[in-house]
């Protein structure tokens, strides 16, 4: 195996939403085993990046490339990307009334396993045990599995449910879009510990956040700052502290200089 190619490689990405350019030449590489934090002001394009990565058809790629393990992701539909191990924990997860979390997880896992060469779905007993284990990791009540996806979930429950899906599907690259917002102090710790438990040499994480707080739990090796559709600064964990102390005007000034 060559270590030359990054797991996820984004090059000079340009994305427009409803004809309006949002990302204007973004490059980023995330490897398995790495944790990257992406910070930036409201409206700078963080969720746009997340959606474009995942293949949301509303987001039009106007230039650049995305590769996952050397495969051209832009050729793939959202479901193919999901099966290949890309995962997005949504900033605003959608409710699907009438479809239970367990049912959904079973379908999704079966699809993902198939992609990984496992033709047969996990036997029901093992599946239930797996979900139970992951729910315990995230301190979720067992009854959760029977509820309808995000239907009537509190803000914090939605975020937890996103991480539960990640835990079950075991992606290679996970983009967590403001998973920390809306979580109370205890939940933030539990969810962070959950993410930490899942991370390791087989998982790369791109953590989108506004706050230093989550970075006290989940330690990124790299921090990037996105302003107006471009990464204007990258650095180590200390960058997050500087941002917290000085605000985005500080990087805007650096950029202007």
């Amino acid at each position: 195996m060559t270590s030359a190619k990054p797991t996820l490689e984004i090059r000079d990405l340009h994305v427009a939403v409803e004809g309006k350019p949002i990302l204007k030449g973004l490059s980023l590489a995330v490897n398995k085993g790495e944790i990257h934090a992406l910070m930036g002001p409201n409206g700078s394009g963080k969720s746009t990046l997340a959606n474009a990565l995942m293949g949301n058809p509303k987001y039009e790629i106007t230039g650049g490339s995305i590769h996952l393990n050397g495969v051209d992701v832009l050729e793939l539909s959202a479901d193919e990307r999901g099966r290949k191990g890309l995962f997005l924990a949504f900033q605003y997860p959608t409710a699907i009334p009438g479809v239970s979390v367990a049912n959904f997880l079973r379908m999704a896992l079966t699809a993902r396993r198939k992609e990984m060469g496992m033709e047969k779905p996990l036997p029901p007993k093992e599946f239930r045990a797996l979900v139970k284990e992951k729910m315990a990791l995230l301190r979720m009540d067992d009854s959760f599995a029977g509820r309808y996806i995000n239907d009537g979930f509190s803000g914090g429950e939605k975020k937890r449910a996103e991480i539960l899906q990640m835990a079950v599907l075991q992606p290679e690259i996970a983009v967590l879009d403001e998973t920390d917002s809306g979580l109370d102090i205890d939940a933030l710790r539990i969810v962070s510990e959950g993410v930490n438990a899942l991370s390791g040499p087989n998982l790369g994480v791109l953590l989108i956040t506004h706050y230093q707080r989550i970075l006290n739990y989940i330690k990124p090796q790299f921090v990037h700052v996105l302003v107006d559709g471009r990464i204007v600064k990258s650095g180590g964990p200390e960058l997050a502290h500087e941002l917290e102390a000085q605000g985005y005007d500080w990087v805007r000034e650096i950029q202007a200089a």
Partner: protein
Amino acid sequence: MNEPQQTLDIREGYKEKFGFHDDIAPVFKSRRGLDKSVVEEISAMKGEPAWMRDFRLKALEQFEKKPLPNWGGNVGEIDFQNIFYYLKPTEEQTKNWDEVPADIKRTFDRLGIPEAEQKFLSGVGAQYDSETVYHKIKQDLADKGVIFLDTGSALEQHPDLFRQYFGTIIPPSDNKFAALNSAVWSGGSFIYVPKGVKVDMPLQAYFRINAQNMGQFERTLIIVDEGAWVHYVEGCTAPIYASDSLHSAVVEIIVKKGARCRYTTIQNWSNNVFNLVTKRAAAYQDATMEWVDANLGSKLTMKYPSVYLMEPGAHAEILSIAFAGKGQHQDAGGKAVHGAPNTTSSVVSKSISKDGGRAGYRGLIKVAKGAKGCKSTVRCDALLLDEHSRSDTYPYMEIEEDQVSIGHEATVSKIGDEQLFYLMSRGIPEAEAAAMIVSGFIEPITKELPMEYAVEMNRLIQLQMEGSVG
């Protein structure tokens, strides 16, 4: 050899699973078209008593006199003289699957009927074109006095009980199609559940149209005596032909004091069937009548199962699903008539339309003067899968009493891009994701079904969705 021309635009999966036909040589087939002599011939074939022959002939007169309904769907297309009104597929009805002719048995095997009977049913009837080819009830229920027969056999074996109730809930004069059914009826189920007997597993009938240009006119009569309980399930399918078939049933139900009846339909006709069915129940003191009515397939369905709440404490539950695909029109709904004080009704309708199909809810809540303290809630939700499809809601109310509580809620939604993207991002292919959303939409109804039928419903929804997206 005589392969019928198949319409190409419809559900691929249906063709394979249900849309096949058998080349059988019927024992008897009436000539095309309808007149007095055809009706007399049917009656004679069946060796019926004179009163039934007269009933049929009077009904025929009413059919001929009555105008076609000018609302609902386009029934003007039906060519009544091009239809075969009676086809007898076998000489004898049997209680043993092994005695059913091989071709016909193969059909029911493919549809999974004998297997279901083994697993979770109290009794099964299987009708093939005009006649029932198989009928059986579990011995312990028969010992308790439960009668489950095809309707013709019930007329023979229980003439008094039969005549006491037959045609009392839906007289031939009710509407043109009830009159037609009354004139040419054949097959259907007759159920009598004696006082206090609870039939815990469902009784099921399966209706299969096989011949081309066939008319199927089964007639079902269910009497649930005081404090008794029954769940009856019917399923229906037909081959895909280029020309139309007609299915026009009449279902009459009497639910006596404190009794409970649930009638579940999972209709899955091919797209060349006109399905015009009259279903009505009378519920007496503290009785409960539940219609669970799932309408998939057919060219046009007009069906509004109704409950007449005759005495205080009676309750009606109507759950309706209508799914219209390309070239289909589902005009479904329900009716609750509150004829006594303190009666309650609840209607939930879920309609889905896709590929230019048209599905809707047409319902009536009626409260008679003096029926104080009645409660009724109606909820109808429509889901549109694309821009070319159509949903209609016609909620009629005739409330003649002030001291009542009536609630009505209606929503129309489109399948959300957000929802599709969310499911797909987890690796679920688009068609499956769409099917999941639709299954979720009707879940408030499918969760009421026994597990086996809920699974079947979701499988059928999946089939409907196949090849539709993208």
